[in-house]
């Protein structure tokens, strides 16, 4: 039960950060590939790094 909630929270947090960066620097919003890279870093790479360093 906790895992899906944690996953949704992670995506929401990534969305909030993406919107904040996009509002401050609109150039950031134009490229689809930038959004994909940002999402992968936020919800795959960073959580993997965090769990790696916790162990």
């Amino acid at each position, binding site marked *: 039960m906790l895992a899906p909630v944690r996953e949704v929270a992670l995506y929401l947090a990534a*969305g909030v950060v993406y919107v904040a960066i996009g509002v401050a620097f*609109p150039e950031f919003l134009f490229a689809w590939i930038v959004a994909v890279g940002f*999402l*992968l870093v936020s919800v795959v790479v960073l959580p993997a790094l965090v769990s790696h360093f916790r162990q």
Partner: protein
Amino acid sequence: MSWAAHDLEPYVIQKELGKRIAFVPLLIGSYAPDLLSKWFVYGVADLKADNPAQFHRGWPGAGFTHSLVFGVLIGLLLYALWRNKVVAYSFVIGQWAHALTDTGDTVGTMLLFPFSDHLFTVGAWAYAGQTGRYVDAGAYFSGLGFVWDGLFVVWGILSWRVLTRGYFRTTVMAADPFWRWAGRYLSETTLVALYRASFFYGVARWTAWLIWAHVVRSFAFDLRWGGPRWVPRIYARDLNAATGCRCPGCCSMRPRLGFYGAVAVCAWTKGLIASGSGRRGHARDRPRAMSSGGQPRPRSGARTPWRKSRRRPADPRAGPPG
């Protein structure tokens, strides 16, 4: 043009068609008409079209990418390469969705090209691609364009079930050969993130542009038909040979009526899908919840042995409680 609808339409279509559609070609089809032409409309460095609207939607120009025939031709090419009709028609559906959505602005699209260079337009929001990316964004998010995209944002969020990991595993991966191939190299978490990326992009970008246009900058809202009126906009009659067009559409078309008609046809089609095999397919495709033992939980109302066995008949010899 639309700023978020093309990102979100594939998820809505995915929800309706389930295993009968392949997501990646659907998404590529949804982006295809603008994939190679949009950068030249806004310009990169000194490279920019002399007449951006004519280049984007007209002929001569790259407007043929917004025609229905273009989608069919690329679909046939995909079929010749892969021999997979689901991949081919998924691309066609995505490309058609894009071409039809773009009829919403004041320029419209040449849906019937090469048989006609007539631009079909509903004219609900202003086409202002020639003003540059930022003014275009400000205009789009001040007129009915952002309302149209907002409908897809809401519709996409209501279709949240297609974003779940279970749905991805049981429906999206099963229908699309790309994910099975990618699954050999990437983890499921990465695949799911890639699958959700365009949804994330569409919703986040819609939110960010809306805030940027009305909080950071002060573009004025103008939700009148064909607005906003403060931006210099291009009309279909300014392009191609449409000025002298005498077709029944140009002579007697009432764009607002056409728009309502299109919405009615969409609703009717959705009703047909829901009442036909689509609803049954959708229920079947829906991932089943897992019980704590790792077994699929039975659907509500289903008869199960354990439920029977736990019911004990009342003992007539037992006295009153207490």
